[in-house]
């Protein structure tokens, strides 16, 4: 399964699937790194459809932000369900990522960062 991506000005929105788990983690990690290598360095991870994430899925997010930051970009999260939000906070990832309630707010934030 491939990630869905939408360009929104200087920002790319990646709509993550219902499950973000070990089964697809390696594939997604490579897809996102390839995207960053192609110059798409400001990414919104839209997680409104994500119903389940495991620690391998979280590692995809960490890998993405490390790749983006090393290329001068940034990754933010949006649309987390209460369950996913709880997991992100438990694993302290809310200290690593800016988190937004919706995709539009996340895009606006990153767009201003990309323009700066």
């Amino acid at each position, binding site marked *: 399964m491939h990630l869905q991506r939408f360009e929104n000005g200087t920002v790319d929105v990646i709509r993550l699937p219902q*499950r973000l*788990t*070990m*089964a*697809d983690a390696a594939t997604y990690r490579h897809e996102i790194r390839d995207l960053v290598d192609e110059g798409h360095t400001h990414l919104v991870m839209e997680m409104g459809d994500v119903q*389940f994430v*495991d*620690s*391998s899925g*979280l*590692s995809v997010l*960490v*890998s993405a932000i*490390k790749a983006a930051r090393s290329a001068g970009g940034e990754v933010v999260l949006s649309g987390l369900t*209460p*369950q996913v939000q*709880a*997991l992100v906070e*438990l*694993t*302290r*990832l809310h*200290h*690593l990522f800016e988190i937004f309630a919706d995709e539009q707010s996340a895009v606006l934030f990153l767009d201003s960062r990309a323009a700066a």
Partner: protein
Amino acid sequence: MKQLLLINLKPDNIPRAADWIESICRSEGLPEMDSYQVKTCVVEAINNAVEHAYGFGKGTINIGLWKEGRQMMIEISNDNENSQSVDFAQDAEPVPESERGRGWLIIKSWVDDAVMKRRGGRTVVRLTKRIPI
């Protein structure tokens, strides 16, 4: 009554097993968030076996669920007694930028008790989750 599931480690089977576990937890009276937490912990235990017992290769996992008083008991076992052992009492605080090391923190935090032991040539992880009154 103890309910048992034997899963072959194919990519689609772990999510199915996880949904089965969540469904049983809900039917036994665990609230939605607690059931989600148990499901997540079971997936983490299975992932650990996939990586450390089977090296991402073929294998089977046994899952047993039963109710003991006001507790849900869940056992996840594999047939490799050389699986990596885990000290659940250790400090498992992750480094935010680390891509690894969150699985056991999740288990340690989201169930009331977690024990790993060797039994009859198998590695068994037993999880306990209290059912709120």
